[in-house]
């Protein structure tokens, strides 16, 4: 199977099914799991496999080894879901949710929790369909919707209290709460999801909270505090650009300083290296700072990063590359370096290529860039 020779594998697997006759309980349950896993994989790569075959396999393996019941149920419903059998999957899940088997089910508590959660998740989808299809006046549909909402909310609430990554569940739960105008409840859920120490630091949790706050027109201070936490976790997040623009609006000196740090932190990441927006943002922040007479802040930040930035952003080859690929970027970078006061070192190195680049790009891109470059030259 590792060599993807499915046909051969199927033959061997057919022979291996004899292992189910094994009398040792341990070996039997092991064989059961192996057959389930391998069998599913082989079926998935069988050119003519049908849903019935899958169903038969899942059903049989489910009941021959009780130890994996919950897991196989879950996989079975996943398979149905992925193949578009939404209703069957829902039925599978609800059957599995009511499964009890003494100790066996207790040991599979995690899977059972997930089963419940997915059950609620699917309830949410039913709720969604009802929401979009049913006319609002119809009292019957709204009652139905409400019952689904209750079902879903109970199970989703349950899983959300468990530490973990529950992005889809949280989103659907919040969506339902918002629909029923329970803003506070939703906010509580999101805040818990974002700030609870027991949960892993999930950037999405903060993003959801931020988006929620933004949707509901929360004051900028709240937004900023949300993004501040996010910045601590993921300094390279996309929202940092928004964060900068928010901070710039506040016009407090500390915020300005933070803003500069954030923008520069962003550009510390090589993944933002060639991003024009990020550079523009930095340039904007710096010009604002310079206007406000806070040049010392810029120098302070620059000192920290000088070595890194000179090798990472301002080498000859970068100038060459930028001039060939993205002249605007070169323009912004040059401006930034000028503010840093490194124009002698960096611009000279860039100038080396300008003769080369202006000729080349002028032919290609027209006069605009050419003018731009000359403008820059004059400025420098």
């Amino acid at each position, binding site marked *: *199977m*590792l*060599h*993807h*020779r499915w*046909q051969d594998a199927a033959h061997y697997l057919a022979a291996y099914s004899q292992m189910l006759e094994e009398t040792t309980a341990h070996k039997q349950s*092991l064989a059961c*799991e*192996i057959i389930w*896993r*391998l*069998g599913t*994989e082989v079926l*998935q*790569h069988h*050119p*003519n496999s049908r849903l019935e075959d899958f169903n038969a396999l899942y059903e049989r393996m489910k009941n021959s080894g009780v130890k994996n019941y919950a897991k196989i149920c879950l*996989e079975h419903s996943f398979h149905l*879901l*992925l193949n578009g059998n*939404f209703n069957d999957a829902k039925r599978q899940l609800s059957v599995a949710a009511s499964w009890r088997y003494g100790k066996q089910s207790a040991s599979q508590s995690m899977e059972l929790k*997930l089963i419940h959660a*997915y059950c609620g998740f699917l309830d949410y*989808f039913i709720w969604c*369909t009802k929401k979009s299809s049913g006319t609002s006046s119809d009292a019957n549909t709204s009652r139905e919707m409400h019952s689904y909402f209750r079902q879903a909310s109970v199970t989703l609430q349950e*899983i959300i209290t*468990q*530490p*973990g*990554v*529950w*992005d*889809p569940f949280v989103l659907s739960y919040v969506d339902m709460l918002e629909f029923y105008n329970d803003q506070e409840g939703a906010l509580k859920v999101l805040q818990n999801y974002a700030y609870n120490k*027991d*949960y892993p*630091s*999930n*950037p*999405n949790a903060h*993003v959801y909270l931020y988006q929620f706050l933004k949707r509901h027109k929360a004051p900028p201070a709240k937004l900023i505090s949300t993004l501040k936490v996010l910045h601590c*976790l*993921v300094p*390279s*997040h*996309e929202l940092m650009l928004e964060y900068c623009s928010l901070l710039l609006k506040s016009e407090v000196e500390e915020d300005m300083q933070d803003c500069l740090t954030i923008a520069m932190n962003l550009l*510390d*990441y*090589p*993944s*933002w290296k*060639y*991003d024009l927006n990020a550079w523009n943002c930095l340039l904007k922040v710096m010009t604002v700072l310079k206007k406000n007479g806070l040049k010392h802040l810029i120098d302070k930040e620059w000192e*920290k990063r000088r070595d*890194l930035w000179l*090798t*990472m952003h301002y*080498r000859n080859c*970068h100038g060459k*590359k930028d001039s060939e*690929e993205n002249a605007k970027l070169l323009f912004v970078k040059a401006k930034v370096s000028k503010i840093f006061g490194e124009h002698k070192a960096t611009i000279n190195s860039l100038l080396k290529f300008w003769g080369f680049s202006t000729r080349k790009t002028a032919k290609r891109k027209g006069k605009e860039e050419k003018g731009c470059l000359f403008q820059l030259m004059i400025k420098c």
Partner: protein
Amino acid sequence: MSGLVSVAGGSMDNKFPAQLFPHFYLDGPPDLKPLHLYGGWGSYGQVLRAISKTAQTPWEFQAQHVAEGEMWVPVEPVVTPLLPPNAAAKIFSGPPVSPDDFPEHMQHFYVHHCKDSFFTMGQLLGEHFNFGRKWCKDRIKMGRMHKFVDCLKYKKCELEHTLERVPRYHNLLKDVVCDIPSALLAELLHEELTLQKDLEEFQPSTTGGALGYFPLEDFEGQKEACLVYPRGEALDSLNFHRVVLEFNDGKPPFMNMENAPLVFKLNGSVRQISTARVDDEATIGVRLDHFCGVWMMKDGQRPRPLQVIQLEECCTSISVSPHVRAELVVATESGAAYHWTVGSRPQKFRDERSNLYFNAKSLWRWCEFSAHPRVMVFADRTGAELTDSRSSDCSHTLFRIGKTAGCKSGERVFLAKYLGQGHAHHHLIATQFSAYVMDERMPSVPALKWEHMMESPPCFAQIVPALDSKGTSKILLGAQKAQETMLLQYSGGREEPCRAHGPVQKLCSPCESLTIRQLPHRQHKVKERLAVPAAGLAAAQNEGFLSVFQLTGAGDIFCQMLKLHSDTHPEPSRNIDSVESLSNLNSQSTQVSEGQEESAEETKKEGKEQEVSDSELFSDSDSEREQYQQRLSQVEVVVNDERDSHASDAEEGISREPSSVPDSSMRSAQINSARPVRPASPETASKELKLIWKKWLASLLVEATAKEHCLEHWQLRTRDMMRFKVKYRDRLEEDQFLSLRKDLTDAMKNRQLLIHKGTYLPPLEVAPLPEAVDPSDWPDDLSQRLTASWGGDWSNWWDEKLGLNRDTKIEALRRKRRQEKRAKARNRVALSGSFTSSVSYQDDLSGWSSGTSQYLGSDGESFVNSQSAAEDTALSEPETLPKSPVTQRRPTSQATERSSPESFKSLRSSPSKPQEQDSAMVISQSQNQEQGQAPTVETDSLFSSSKTALKPSLSSQQKPKLWQQQDYLSSLFGSQEPSQDPGQVDDGSLPVHSAAAMSQRLGSSYSLRRPSQPRASSQASQPQRKKSRMGF
């Protein structure tokens, strides 16, 4: 190219997936038990709603594990050697090191490194000993000891050459004379050997792999790349090899290795090579045990060494920054991690004396870069942390062995790798069970998890970035011990969460790629060579082809190509080819193996034929042919003419066992078009590859034979012993000898026999045949048995000996005798009626005897027929009668011989009471006993008389007679067993019948003394005469 990828991916890499798959976050140590290795299959992981752009479709879901991935199908079923075998490689073959072998190691140390082991004490004691011939005052003369010490260096019989003084000196000086006390040395050695044994299983120091590959800037339209690999005896010379990639439409790129590599000799084994291309320069970091070095290579320039650092502690990891040029990070066993910018002193940014999360008792530390150029990953066996090198105490967990990641108990981190090429924020953490992709923006929770199902822990990894946004990134995992290489595919991490694509795929490994049909000792050598643990892994992607390079510990580099099948309908041409060619190839290979057994000439011819076919193979285009020739020459070491002979028998059968897979999968492909069918991987290697392997093996074997040397033995000087002169052969003899040699070669060429007649050699002496062994001379049981088995019916003999076939025989004989009787009865005219009472008895006897006669042979038959009545008693012998060729030859004489012992026996046996008799016979038995006493005396007389009468005729046959007698006796007195002789049964019933019958028996014995008389029946019918005989 890499720049483009990073630009395209770079902006996207900042996006974080809007939704992640659900995942539990749990504290605590792992509690799952590793049960089996098959966890990677048949599971979807988790699902969530796909963000579908078309809102019409009701609900679409996507799973974490997708069954379908990109189809990478190997072009050849086996790996291809890329370079000639590493000539200087030393493989430590043989049984694994046992810690209990330390005395041998010590002995070796004392004998072969005496300078090291005895130098100090030797200096001190030296002045008191004199090894010269001269006698000096105050010095002990050690002249003879010199010889002894010389002898020590050779392998020799241990009992020889012990000088008397040696043990004395040994006793006197053994504690003093060693520089290192032997007890201490032994202890340390044992410890070291134990460690070595562990290292044989897994070598943490080679983690990361000592193979580097990076593309160079296109130069004059040629795509070039650089392969960095170690070679030499202990992988201690670093080679920079410029590879020119040549592309043909639809064919895997050809690696032109024509350029000579640039070699740097290093001061130790290369453990790891880390390469990264930043902007326009490639940085190559090389790790040795205590040294780290940096080379830089600009496009179109030679690599130049920049800086070397020496570390006190053993260095465990080196990693080149993919973001900033000439920056490295180095970790050591002590737990220190250094950030090293070339041109300045390495800065220690972390010093972790203990393991990170729990005590794993491991010194292995690992450092990698992360998405931020100043934040490093610091990993050990328990997990990995992100450490900011700018501040001393800023670090947070990236990954830890625990419940959250779903680890199994006993799971340990074996490799951490920054997957910057695939995604700026992704890291690979590999344990012995699983591989995790971690997103550093969302630490602690794995973005993706595979169970890689490898037998040994992975310690090399390579990332091959996706070609476009829809493609999958490929991760290659490599293991040392079994040379396993796994291909994993995943996508996402940007707008969508990470998803694994397709099941884990295992690639070919050098050790399993060949089934070499070779002479056993060669095969062993090649197997050994190919099975050396892997030492490195590299990969490159070129236009739909994935080249995977593997380095083994012996310094050999192998390459395999995988082709991307993107379309749903695979092109079946290759499959058909392989099926068709399968039979041809098989038949060809069998021919070859037959040819091997024939003559050298034959194989040479075949080799020529094969080469002819090779040239035909490439008749379509010259360039291909050239390429192919290059490929051939690339793997071949320039060797002398000896090569040919080796090449001819180094025929390998690369064809794997044929299977029906290609055929059936093709059929199914025709039936169904809904699900893309994976094109079957080729079952047989192409001819080019076979020839490449052939050349490679040839050069390997040539080296091996060249290197092979006998163990040194101590040589005795024989000059003094061999005093006589060697005579010169005269001229004529010399000529004869030469002509003979010529004849011999001619005969071999023409494949004829060289007959003695055709030569001028002196006539051969006719050796006399040894005298034929007469089996009758060897009367003992064993010899008889041997004789019987020589004659071919040993089993019969044995049956007879045990009496197993008695009943059937009796039955058969009776039947026959009855028939004969009936036939005879017709002939008998007058006398038949007078013996009515004895007829039944006669019948019994006759049945038995005729059976014996039948068994005696056909020429005995006529005799028996002619005088059957006389023979009745004579031949009714116990089964112990030997069935020897002698008896077959002379039935007549035998019959005469046996008459006397038979008569003796028949009388003698009556007192010995047979136990098998029916209860009805009990009464008769007593009579039997009474009667039996009387005849004994008579028998003796009879016996003696018969003896005298027979004397002239028997003189030549005295011996057989003797043993026959003995045999009878033994059979008689040893016959108290249940298996009774039929003769005795008959004897038991003898007294019941009239005395006439008795006399008849005796008379018959008499009659046999005159075999010339044809009318035996008439004799049997003359009781009077017999009675008189008895009286005599």
